[in-house]
């Protein structure tokens, strides 16, 4: 199915390019489309395809269509380096979106940075990503910007005295989320009654939860991906745990309440995006995504969708010369100035602090919204 769609997209793009006359703008997309990380990579690709279709349908950029060159990086570090090099040197793309995992960006980012090509991550939340160099951008919001607000809001709402923590300790995403939680809890002087871990692929969390239950926390802080989190919630409730959850970025998926139903009620989540955000840009995105792919979008798709609009805004502000190196540099210089209002709300970049005297790249500068899960839905928390 998706292979067919892929081919169609290519054909359509080629035909459009041939008819329009103006050269296509080739943009690389390196995402994990097979293997374990494909569950993020696939929605990300969908988000990009949706945005590309929309931009091209509106006449593209100064008459040129955007052509996405999509490669599967499998979430493996050697593979991602190969894909980056292929996109940079063979396909000669203007910039690259991706890769899917933070770990992959650590491997491939330096390649793009050395070649003076923008690598733009839409799902890399780990610390230090933008330390790689000035050509590294991301619109994924770091946990350290979101979690302090989430925790403080939840603590105030529930009058929390002590919490228990559970996180996935073999996954870079959930582990770095935990590190931030740990620091935030220490900063806000909230005692931790128990810290429990699980590993990827675990489906049985009852042993840890039984232990947590015995320490009687006021809330459970959880750094997990949505599917794991939902199972944790279900199993917690089936063990008779009543404490609410406080979640990280991984909770931001409709999967969370699709699976957990009412079990997740009362959960606090901070996020740059929610599918119930009534902002027109978001309503349009959610509707268009459902229509095109027949499924609910998630945060990864939303950030991917916004990312292409960010790049489009930058492209519109410059004049492409056809000389690859100059155009790549011009795009790099135009990107930091972009600010848009997208599916994830108002967005602009913030330069990363230089590390060891070397200039860094650009992080997302976005204010998180705090949501509370009620009756199986994310509702914007208003303080009531």
């Amino acid at each position: 199915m998706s292979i067919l769609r892929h081919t169609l997209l290519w054909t359509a793009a080629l035909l459009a390019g041939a008819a329009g006359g103006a050269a296509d703008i080739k943009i690389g997309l390196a995402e994990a489309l097979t293997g374990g990380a494909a569950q993020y990579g696939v929605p990300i690709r969908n988000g990009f395809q949706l945005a590309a279709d929309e931009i091209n349908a509106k006449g593209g950029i100064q008459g040129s269509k955007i052509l996405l060159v999509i490669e599967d990086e499998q979430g493996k570090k050697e593979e991602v380096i190969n894909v980056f090099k292929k996109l940079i040197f063979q396909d000669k793309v203007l910039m690259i979106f991706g890769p899917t995992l933070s770990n992959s960006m650590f491997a491939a980012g330096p390649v793009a940075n050395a070649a003076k090509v923008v690598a733009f991550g839409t799902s890399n939340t780990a610390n230090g990503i933008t330390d790689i160099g000035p050509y590294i951008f991301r619109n994924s919001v770091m946990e350290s910007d979101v979690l302090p607000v989430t925790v403080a809001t939840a603590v105030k709402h529930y009058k929390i005295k002590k919490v228990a923590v559970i996180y996935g300790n073999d996954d870079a995403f959930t582990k770095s989320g935990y590190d931030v939680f740990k620091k935030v809890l220490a900063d806000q002087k909230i005692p931790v009654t128990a810290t429990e871990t699980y590993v990827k692929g675990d489906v049985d969390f009852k042993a840890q939860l039984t232990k947590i239950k015995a320490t009687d926390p006021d809330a459970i802080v959880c750094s997990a991906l949505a599917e794991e989190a939902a199972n944790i919630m279900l199993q917690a409730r089936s063990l008779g745990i009543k404490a609410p959850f406080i979640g990280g970025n991984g909770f931001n998926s409709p999967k969370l309440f699709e699976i957990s139903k009412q079990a997740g009620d009362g959960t606090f989540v901070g996020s740059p995006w929610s599918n119930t955000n009534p902002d027109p840009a978001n309503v349009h995105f959610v509707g268009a995504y459902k229509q095109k792919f027949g499924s609910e979008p998630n945060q990864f798709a939303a950030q991917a969708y916004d990312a292409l609009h960010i790049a489009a805004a930058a492209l519109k502000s410059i004049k492409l010369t056809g000389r690859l190196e100059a155009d790549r540099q011009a795009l790099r210089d135009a990107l930091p100035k972009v600010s848009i209002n997208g599916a994830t709300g108002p967005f602009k970049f913030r330069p990363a602090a230089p590390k060891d005297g070397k200039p860094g790249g650009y992080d997302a500068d976005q204010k998180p919204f705090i949501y509370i899960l009620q009756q199986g839905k994310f509702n914007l928390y208003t303080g009531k």
Partner: protein
Amino acid sequence: MFTQQLLNALTLGSVYALFALGFTLVFGVLAVINLSHGAVFMVGSYAALTLVTRLHLPLGIALPAAMALSGCLGMAIDVLILKPLRARNAPHLIPMIATIGVAIMLSSAAQGIFGAEILRFPEGTIPAGEFTLGEVHVRALELSIVGISFGLMAVLFLAIRRTQLGRALRAIAESPRSASLLGINVEGLFHATSFVAAALGGVAGVLIGLNFNAITPLMGQPILHKGIAVIILGGMGDIRGALLAGLFLGFAEVMSKAYLSSQMGDAVAFGLLFLILLVRPSGLFGRVLERKA
């Protein structure tokens, strides 16, 4: 808390035992470490899911159908791949690698067909019974998993101990050559064993998919590792050992998470495994069974 952990351990342990049962059966009879067992387990899960969601069949029909389907898959693997390798007397490493190839094919195919996303059974597939006994919360599903696991294991155990077929299988496990001299249809029993083992793997897949709400193309990987641990602990090819070792691993895992740290839980488990192998190569519960070629 302890009683609850005990129940947690029992559920987890019986799932491990059920998975390892087919795994160890194939090793015992065919002398092959069948690394596609995890993929067959995954196929069982997807098969039941498809029957429930697409054809709207009740679980009571979908479960045996998925079992039969995985069984056929297991038999196909034996006929198409393992049999030619047996025929040319390939060293034991070779069939193991062939089954790796099968596992890759199956999980890629599952991803191609169903996508990489985590799928789950629709609500109401199973009655969501749940009750509390003092401090302990029990779900009907968990009880039925323990029940089905033990039931299947008992049937298999009795079949092997008490029936003519079981005697034939034990003769093959001792030495395929002398078994065939005794007039036993060795090839036929190899196929049958593959069928039964894969069917057991398929059931385990459905049960775990139901209990933990997560069906993915790669769901067979982690449990395969646990399965390897179980059959080593239990003594390779030893059915009673696999049962004991499955429960033991479930208990060890839950208790180490409960009373030690959940951080190094797996390191402790595999470290223990390593040491046990050094001290008792035939496993903790296994009897030494020298196979005569």
